[in-house]
């Protein structure tokens, strides 16, 4: 059940030049959060629409969001400090469903990495991660994966860290090495999601992807965040954001 909570910022941290992390006192909202879901945050009086932000982590009553300061709303959010209060709707959307047995491979690209942390941590059969960044300076959350005992392989577009290239190469590596992986979960830019799906398909492993589209209400009423799935427009905020990659009309 989604709810509206006024959440206090417990900790605010800048991770890279444009990526920020907020730890929120979110009560029941945090306890209800599932991997792959998101929250819709009111970003000041001047911005009419809330900003949908993926849930990076949830433990007890605390909720963590990690986001990129990109436009006016997220820049406002990036300026929040410990003690500030935020109007948060959530948890929203349909997240990742775990396979009955086996490990999951969580794959994140850039600002698609944060939701993969919770997705990996909650995996009942364990998880391994493949993460891709533009370059070394854009790397985020690597220590968090380590702390959660989730093995990580890294790729970067320019080779300054890890594999020189894209994450789909890492997906192939993992799926070749480890036959206990029974599902691939991915979040990131659309071309990356498509390439990860292609790699997973080569190995016959089901792939679930988190899609992105401009949103209005965030709760499934206004129908603006349309995404073509199975020949029909479904809605990222309510039907998704996570869809079976096999059904997405790429």
């Amino acid at each position, binding site marked *: 059940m989604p709810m509206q909570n006024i959440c206090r910022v417990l900790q605010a941290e800048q991770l890279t030049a444009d990526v920020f992390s907020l730890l929120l006192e979110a009560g029941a909202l945090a306890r209800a959060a599932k991997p792959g879901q998101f929250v819709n945050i009111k970003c000041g009086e001047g911005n009419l629409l809330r900003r949908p932000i993926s849930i990076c982590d949830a433990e007890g009553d605390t909720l963590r969001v990690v986001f990129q300061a990109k436009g006016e709303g997220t820049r406002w959010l990036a300026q929040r400090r410990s003690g500030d209060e935020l109007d948060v709707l959530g948890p929203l959307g349909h997240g990742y469903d775990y396979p009955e047995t086996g490990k999951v491979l969580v794959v994140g690209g850039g600002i698609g990495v944060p939701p993969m942390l919770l997705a990996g941590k909650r995996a009942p059969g364990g998880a391994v991660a493949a993460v891709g960044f533009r370059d070394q300076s854009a790397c985020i959350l690597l220590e968090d994966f380590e702390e959660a005992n989730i093995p990580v392989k890294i790729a970067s577009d320019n080779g300054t860290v890890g594999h020189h290239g894209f994450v789909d190469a890492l997906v192939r590596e993992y799926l070749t090495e480890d036959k206990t992986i029974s599902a691939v979960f991915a979040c990131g830019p659309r071309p990356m999601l498509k390439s990860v799906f292609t790699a997973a398909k080569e190995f016959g492993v089901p792939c679930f992807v988190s899609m992105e589209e401009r949103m*209005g209400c965030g709760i499934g009423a206004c129908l603006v965040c349309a995404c073509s799935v199975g020949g029909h427009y479904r809605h990222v905020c309510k039907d998704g954001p996570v869809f079976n990659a096999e059904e997405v009309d790429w």
Partner: protein
Amino acid sequence: MKHVDMSVNLAGMVMKNPVVVASGTYGFGREFNEFYDISALGGICCKGLTLHPREGNPPPRIAETPSGILNSVGLQNPGVDGFIAHELPWLRQRDVKIIANISGNTPEEYGIMCEKLSDSGVDMIEVNVSCPNVKCGGLQYGTVPAMTAEVTEQAKKHAGNVPVMIKLSPNVTDITAIARAVEDAGADAVSLINTIRGMRIDVNTRRPILHMNTGGLSGPAVLPVAVRMVWEVANTVKIPILGMGGVAKAEDAAQMMLAGATAVAVGTACFADPFAPVKVRDGLEAIAAAQGLSRVGELTGGVRPW
């Protein structure tokens, strides 16, 4: 605090309070009912229906603008039969007036849809002659008085005892001419305003944000335009008005009523705050009480023009 009678009568449809939610901003109510009991509202203008199901426009369908949004959803909906079969039974269990909203490609289509809805259990039919986001039908009917009148006549002929409310477009030179034509053709009420056509361009890609290039503007940015048009229409016709366009708080709703609206719809504000319509209702009651009114309806038409 003095007790205020919040009930209003919109063309024979008695609502427990004057706060309605605008079509296209509230779906069929289910999503909001997860946050609160939607029986708190006077009525719901349901998502716009067409004769057959529609997929809607390709995304992006929304762009944020100063104090507003542009949308071009393009009437994605399950069709009038889908609504009657799957949405209406659930809605009928709620203590809230149900206003079906319809769009057609021809006057005949409006008639067929009214026929289907006439004994379905809806409390009112809102006829959309003003959707800016679909190519055939909608806006074109709402900009020519004779065509709006023709659609109104068809709707009235087939709606049985269900009151018919025509939703007017602000994208016209003289909205009072359309309102007069609609009243003469037998409409029971009018609702206004629909969205104002607009456009936003990404300067770097030189692409419009919306895939359909243009869309409809709503939100606080349009409130003064809506209040002015409600006032003009109220001075022109005798049939009641459902006022809408940028209403986000109780004071906005009170302005609409003072300008001449019998009831008020909250739309885009529901995106920022799902509880917005409930807050508008409570605030409206407080305003009426503070002004010593015994009925909220006493606000209607109460503006004192210079």
